[in-house]
């Protein structure tokens, strides 16, 4: 399927965020187009994760406008962001450790489940039909990410690389239009990184999901992303296609440094 990059789906304008006296983000603007893979890079403490937290409503910026799918929003909590189709994964895995892989992924579909607890207590009838219908979709995601053999395993017992994959599965289960990935490849070996890259590209190409990702592995970022935003000390210092960013002297100075020489 050919990739189609569409119009701007998310527009961030002049975002500033501070905690007390500490400025995490200063006057940052960038946009994300429908269907693209957008990377955010920058040194440690540059404000990358804060940026994602602003997008899905965990943090509320003191200044700036966020326009998602043509609608401006002021204050929004993560729950509302999820309802609008924004899903994410976390830098430190945030799975539900006591639950099985299957249950973890099923929680990703909670917004689409309509039955209330009284129906659920009865189980037979509407709830059963609903559970089975969603199970079917979840199994498709399990197939897609090739984790069939661990579906009944509690996630706490899985190795790190697989946990990252389950977290991606849970985010995908919500069928998001915008997927935020916070360092999806951190701490992985080369093989696991290759797998994860392939999954991210597959998600983008086959499901048409728009992806915003934070990643430290420059090889990966330059290979898979369409456009890159560079942050440093909470300010935007670069924005553009990978090749352009790679050759930007300011970016080289601040971040790429030795690697570019």
């Amino acid at each position, binding site marked *: 399927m050919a990739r189609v990059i569409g119009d701007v789906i998310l527009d961030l304008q002049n975002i500033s965020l501070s905690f007390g006296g500490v400025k995490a983000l200063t006057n940052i603007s960038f946009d994300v187009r429908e269907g693209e893979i957008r990377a955010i890079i920058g040194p440690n403490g540059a404000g990358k994760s804060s940026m994602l937290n602003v997008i*899905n409503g*965990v943090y509320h910026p003191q200044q700036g406008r966020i326009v998602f799918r043509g609608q401006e929003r002021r204050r929004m*909590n*993560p*729950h509302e*962001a*999820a*309802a609008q189709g924004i*899903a*994410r994964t*976390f830098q430190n895995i*945030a*799975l*539900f*450790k*006591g*639950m099985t892989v299957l*249950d973890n992924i*099923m*929680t*990703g579909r*909670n*917004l689409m*489940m309509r*039955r209330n*607890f009284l129906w*659920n*207590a*009865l*189980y037979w009838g509407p*709830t*059963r039909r609903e*559970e*089975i219908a969603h*199970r*079917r979709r979840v*199994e498709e995601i399990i197939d897609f990410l090739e984790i069939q053999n661990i579906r009944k395993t509690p996630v706490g017992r899985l190795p790190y690389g697989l946990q990252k994959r389950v977290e991606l599965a*849970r*985010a995908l289960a*919500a069928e998001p239009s915008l997927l935020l990935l916070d360092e999806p490849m951190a701490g992985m070996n080369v093989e696991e990184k290759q797998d994860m890259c392939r999954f991210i590209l597959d998600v983008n190409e086959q499901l048409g999901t728009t992806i915003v990702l934070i990643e430290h592995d420059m090889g990966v970022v330059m290979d898979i992303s369409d456009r890159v935003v560079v942050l440093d000390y909470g300010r935007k210092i670069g924005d553009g296609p990978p090749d352009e960013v790679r050759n930007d002297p300011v970016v080289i100075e601040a971040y790429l440094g030795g690697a570019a020489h």
Partner: protein
Amino acid sequence: MIYREAGQFKASYEEDQQIFPIKQDRIVMAALVVAAFFVAPFVASEYWLQAVLTPVLVFALAALGLNILTGYAGQLSLGTGAFMAVGAYATYNFLLRLDGLPFLAGLVLGGLSAAAVGVVFGLPSLRIKGFYLAMATLAAQFFIVWALTKFPWFSNYSSSGIISAQRIEILGFAFDTPARKYLLTLAIVSLLALAAKNLARTNTGRSWMAVRDMDVAAEVIGIPLMKTKLLAFAVSSFYCGIAGGLYAYTYLGTVEPDGFGLDLSFKILFMIIIGGMGSVLGAFLGAAFILLLPVGLNVLMHTSVGVLVPATLASNLELIVFGVLIVFFLIVEPHGLTRLWQIGKEKLRLWPFPH
């Protein structure tokens, strides 16, 4: 060898999502239900029905209620006794003041009253967690026992707040013997246990566990924290309220507010710790363990060493052995009897072969 699922293929998601996916489990469970309903009432003595089996069921229901809140939704509570008291006193008052109200309706109204009180005392959970929340629910514990003693209206102006359960009659059929009361308790507890299991395996239970395991992530994937936590408090307190009603009506017959004190709350908390957090089976195992162990020890003391040691020493020995056993169990298996049972099942799959 015997306990193996070899040859049992699941051809649909329906089959894979049933409560007992393995055939042997279904057979054992069916046998247990048949034994509990059709054998126990005729075989067991009145003492066993009234003083052992009925309280085990009542406490299992209360433990189930606490397990929904603490085990599944991760909200620590020390107010179980108070919610049971609300259930018992509300049932009493509904039956007393509404003429001709059927017993089961009174019991359910009592449970709903407990649920309402539970939601009110669950409000702090939106702000605080863990031990601090336990402190907030402790307030419920003291406040409700105080209120039931302080305002004589609740106990229909009887001395020191004691209430005596009215006769239980359902559709003209009187539940007046221990065997009948046991059967009534068993039926109610079985239905509610099934409902709890259904909640646990569907979206409601998954939302509770998600909030327990990582609340930030739960919110990010769209689970509303406030609604989920308060629902856990409501359902949990409803179970405790029904348990309280049964405690008064089918078990003791006469209760006073002090009977629902902190001791009771702790007893039920021990049950879910020993039985297993976040498990329906755990509530039953824990209740059976805590209630049957003293009985077993008592029998043991009086048949073997009773001749040698005086009665007072024997009863203290009982307490000591009881305490030691609890500590021992917690060290050997901190995840409770349910986990031991699971390990046993995994071993049984292979037995008698080593691999």
